[in-house]
């Protein structure tokens, strides 16, 4: 029996290259005659642009070109493409490549300089004179929806660009007759993905071949290619977009088009010289899309036993100055909210709102953390108010294993019905409780309290949408060398696709994983696809790789059958060799079959369909697949300083069949760490004039080795019935429940003070403020141990 690679801890194919400095990130691309670009950005949150004078910059030695809006061709003077339209999105505003007459957020591009070096290009930025008429800025969500607020887009007549409602059952009636109704406001502030590699674009135009090659740190190379072809008047075949090694994406690199993604290729064509633009860190903070800002007004209705009768949320979603990416984030937030619970009546509505801040588009989690925060906080409120153990309350409301597929009754972000495909939520919960020793917590807690230590435990549940369509494809080729090449267009940003896809293909063709060379994110290698987002690559592209590899396997047997004069049924493919059952002498290697499949003379049988050992296959899932998980943690608060320490963190996760546990654990742990960042360290701060105050890593605080604890991860495997591999997505799972979990653990740690966390992110400053306020109401620094059983 050949080794099964699927499910194994396989070392990554890409690591030797990345570990030895051999990766090719966009900034590593260097070309003869390369020019360097820099972008002049608005220092104002909201202003009219009266005049841009580039004469001084143009006169600087080393400057090759300076572009403003008026210098661009007509197709680039239009607002950039609208990405995902939605009927509810009535004001689908997108930004200009370079500001026309108005700037709407700090960091919006105003002029574009191309020069001999980045140093000179930045010198030139200093010499461009822009006359602005500053306008009042709309900075907060609540300010933006107030009557008479300044308008980000005057022609829209409002800052509300979309108002969308989804309903299940009759919430009003349920609220009216429920034994208990609790309402709460939840606020989540802004954060940013901050990948270690900022964005970057390099473009090269070959006028003889009429070929444009673009290296772009994008998560969506194919849509970029298609859009560039249209905007620049080229054939799609005349544009090759390569997303090479990407130094982390986490969502914002799926956005298209960022202005620089059209400006760099345009300049390269116009100047007939290659141009490179690499975003610096300060630009990244202001010019790469943000996420997270939402304000929810939520209510939950339960019966006397705590069974959920209805949930309602109405929320504001900050889209920033434009909304190119559409309503993905708020739709995901509102459809993630119900989670693993049976909610007979549900009402969610949101208003998407323009503000004079950086554009918002999905960042790892993409609304899911918000939904889970609201739902789990509501559950905690019910537990506290009704005196029911928080875990028992959850048990009473979980969807049961026999109830799948479970129709939530909503429409998901892929416009398909929100139907949970499979899962075992009670088992996930119990596994997590066991791992964190929940049953011993009351005693543990009492012991900590006796030491005057403020330690709390949290448990949070979630269900996550992943693996949505429309499709991805993969082409698998066995070359005469015997090496297997697989090309798919999804880009990779560290998720290990070079290995996980290779495992899938290696199993089908019985070769070694290291003999499968996976090529991702190059439109020249594979030209169909949509991109890496929504935890979908393994599900959709992985399934396509599986189908293509199976097709190549069949083709291999077909070709070998001809050569070995046997029936395909009598052939065995093992260790990369085809042999005839019962005739050990008669065999061919894959390499030999590959040569035979592509003869120089003679004929090829009709049933081969095409020469070579090669097949392309596409996978288009009917709808998303839904992983789930439970996180639990124990945290300690120093109530004199507001500092927090995580004593334990455990995850039990079910994303169907596991391809590579090592890679999966890495995905989960990385997500948790980003969630912790967004809970306690990372916050984008704007002042009242719309200036971004956090534009360095000294002010926007990413967690380090010292802040991220050990994260214990276990998996359940409930296969998805929606794809041939039975897999579900895992890229975002780690981040989703962290704010909800930490809030509950902090409530527990600070329960004597009666603190209830309803906002994220927190900080030592904010925690101490809450503690101070709580103490002012009940001035007792060290209250005695809690009554038993409250845990």
């Amino acid at each position, binding site marked *: 029996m050949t080794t099964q690679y699927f499910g194994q801890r396989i070392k990554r194919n890409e690591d030797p290259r990345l570990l030895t400095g051999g990766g090719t990130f966009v900034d590593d691309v260097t070309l003869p005659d390369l020019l360097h670009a820099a972008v002049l950005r608005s220092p104002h949150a909201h202003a009219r642009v009266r005049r841009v004078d580039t004469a001084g910059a143009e006169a600087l030695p080393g400057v090759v070109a300076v572009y403003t809006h008026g210098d661009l061709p007509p197709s680039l003077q239009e607002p950039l493409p609208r990405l995902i339209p939605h009927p509810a999105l009535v004001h689908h505003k997108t930004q200009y490549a370079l500001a026309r007459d108005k700037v709407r957020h700090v960091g919006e591009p105003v002029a574009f300089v191309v020069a001999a070096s980045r140093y000179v290009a930045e010198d030139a930025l200093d010499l461009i004179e822009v006359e602005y008429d500053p306008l009042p800025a709309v900075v907060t969500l609540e300010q933006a929806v107030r009557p008479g607020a300044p308008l980000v887009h005057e022609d829209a007549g409002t800052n509300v660009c979309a108002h969308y409602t989804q309903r299940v059952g009759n919430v009003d009636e349920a609220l009216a007759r429920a034994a208990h109704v609790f309402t709460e406001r939840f606020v989540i502030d802004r954060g940013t993905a901050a990948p*270690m590699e900022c964005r970057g674009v390099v473009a090269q135009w070959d006028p003889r071949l009429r070929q444009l090659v673009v290296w772009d740190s994008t998560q969506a190379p194919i849509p970029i290619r298609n859009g560039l072809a249209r905007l620049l008047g080229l054939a799609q075949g005349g544009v090759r977009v390569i997303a090479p090694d990407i130094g982390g994406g986490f969502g914002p690199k799926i956005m298209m088009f960022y202005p620089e993604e059209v400006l760099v290729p345009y300049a390269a064509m116009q100047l007939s010289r290659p141009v490179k633009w690499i975003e610096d860190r300060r630009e990244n903070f202001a010019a790469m899309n943000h996420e997270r800002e939402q304000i929810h007004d939520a209510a939950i209705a339960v019966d006397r036993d705590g069974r959920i009768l209805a949930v309602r949320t109405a929320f504001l979603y900050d889209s920033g100055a434009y909304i190119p990416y559409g309503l993905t984030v708020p739709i995901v937030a509102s459809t993630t909210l119900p989670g693993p619970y049976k909610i007979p009546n549900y009402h969610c509505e949101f208003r998407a709102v323009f503000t004079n801040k950086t554009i918002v588009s999905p960042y790892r989690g993409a609304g899911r953390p918000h939904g889970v925060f609201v739902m789990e906080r509501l559950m905690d409120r019910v537990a506290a108010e009704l005196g029911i153990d928080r875990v028992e309350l959850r048990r009473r409301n979980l969807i049961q294993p026999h109830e799948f597929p479970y129709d939530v009754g909503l429409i998901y972000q892929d416009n398909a019905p929100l139907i949970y495909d499979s899962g075992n939520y009670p088992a996930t919960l119990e596994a997590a409780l066991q791992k964190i020793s929940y049953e011993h917590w009351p005693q543990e807690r009492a012991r900590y309290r006796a030491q005057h230590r403020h330690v709390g435990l949290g448990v949070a549940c979630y269900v996550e949408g992943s693996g949505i369509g429309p499709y991805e494809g993969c082409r698998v080729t066995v070359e005469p060398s015997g090496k297997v090449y697989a090309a798919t267009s999804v880009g990779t940003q560290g998720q290990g696709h070079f290995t996980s896809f290779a495992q899938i293909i290696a199993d089908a063709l019985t070769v070694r994983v290291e003999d499968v060379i996976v090529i991702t994110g190059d439109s020249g290698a594979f030209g169909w696809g949509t991109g890496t987002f929504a935890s979908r690559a393994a599900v959709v592209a992985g399934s396509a790789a599986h189908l293509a590899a199976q097709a190549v396997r069949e083709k291999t047997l077909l070709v070998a059958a001809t050569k070995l004069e046997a029936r395909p049924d009598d052939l065995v493919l093992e260790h990369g060799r085809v042999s005839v059952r019962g005739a050990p002498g008669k065999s061919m290697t894959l390499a030999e079959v590959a040569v035979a499949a592509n003869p120089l003379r003679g004929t090829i049988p009709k049933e081969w369909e095409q020469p070579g050992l090669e097949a392309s296959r596409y996978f288009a899932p009917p709808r998303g697949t839904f992983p789930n998980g439970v996180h639990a943690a124990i945290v300690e608060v120093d109530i004199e300083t507001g500092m927090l320490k995580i004593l334990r963190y455990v995850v039990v996760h079910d994303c169907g069949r596991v391809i590579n546990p090592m890679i999966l654990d890495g995905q989960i742990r990385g997500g948790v760490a*980003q969630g912790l960042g967004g809970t306690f360290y990372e916050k984008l701060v704007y002042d009242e004039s719309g200036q971004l105050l956090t534009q360095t890593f000294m002010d926007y605080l990413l967690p380090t080795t010292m802040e991220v604890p050990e994260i214990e991860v276990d998996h359940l495997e409930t296969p998805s019935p929606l794809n041939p591999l039975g897999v579900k997505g895992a890229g975002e799972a780690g981040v989703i429940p962290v704010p909800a979990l930490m809030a509950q653990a902090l409530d527990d740690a600070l329960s004597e003070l009666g603190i209830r966390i309803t906002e994220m992110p927190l900080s030592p400053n904010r925690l101490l403020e809450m503690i101070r306020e709580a103490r002012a109401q009940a001035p007792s620094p060290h209250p005695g141990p809690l009554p038993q059983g409250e845990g």
Partner: protein
Amino acid sequence: MKKRTGVVRRTTKARVVTPRRRNPVRTDAAAPPLVTRKEITVQVNGVAQTAEVEVRMTLVDFIRERLGLTGTHVGCEHGVCGACTILLDGAPVRSCLMFAVQAAGQEIMTVEALGTPDRLHPIQEAFRDHHGLQCGFCTPGFLMTTLAFLRERPSPTADEIRVALAGHLCRCTVYQGIVEAVSDAAARLRAGTPTPAPRARGGARE
């Protein structure tokens, strides 16, 4: 740069206090001339590299653009992320916080000298075995600090490893894998796992 709290409030130091002068002494030394370009020779991965540089060119730009050694990455250009960490005379420094001209006469080691894809250094091997990298962008910086750190502390505790690496940001956040990898690498090096000889790879122009 040290991660400071608070926005940068002032750009340069205002000098408001005039000192009282005591013991007036004439200085006779001549002031060296000011330059904007300078020829430098730097030992990079064992190869002497001579180049004329603008004095404002940062060391990391010199390493990447002039020498073509793109394994050292630029993550923040203000000294927080650690992606550009190299060894300067054997000690880890941020190459974004030095000018190339300052490295004249000194020895630089970058990730390119550590191991090859076919023959990884034990530290690199351990990073691979423990999934100490995802996207790989921050990785060269981590490796260089680890190399220097393990020379100084061959048997570190997990806590010591965490402190030593706290000056590096990994956004894929495989810290747990990294800490395990460094611990394992220490064991491999102690056990005498053969390490590839540092490669003389001075750059694309060698």
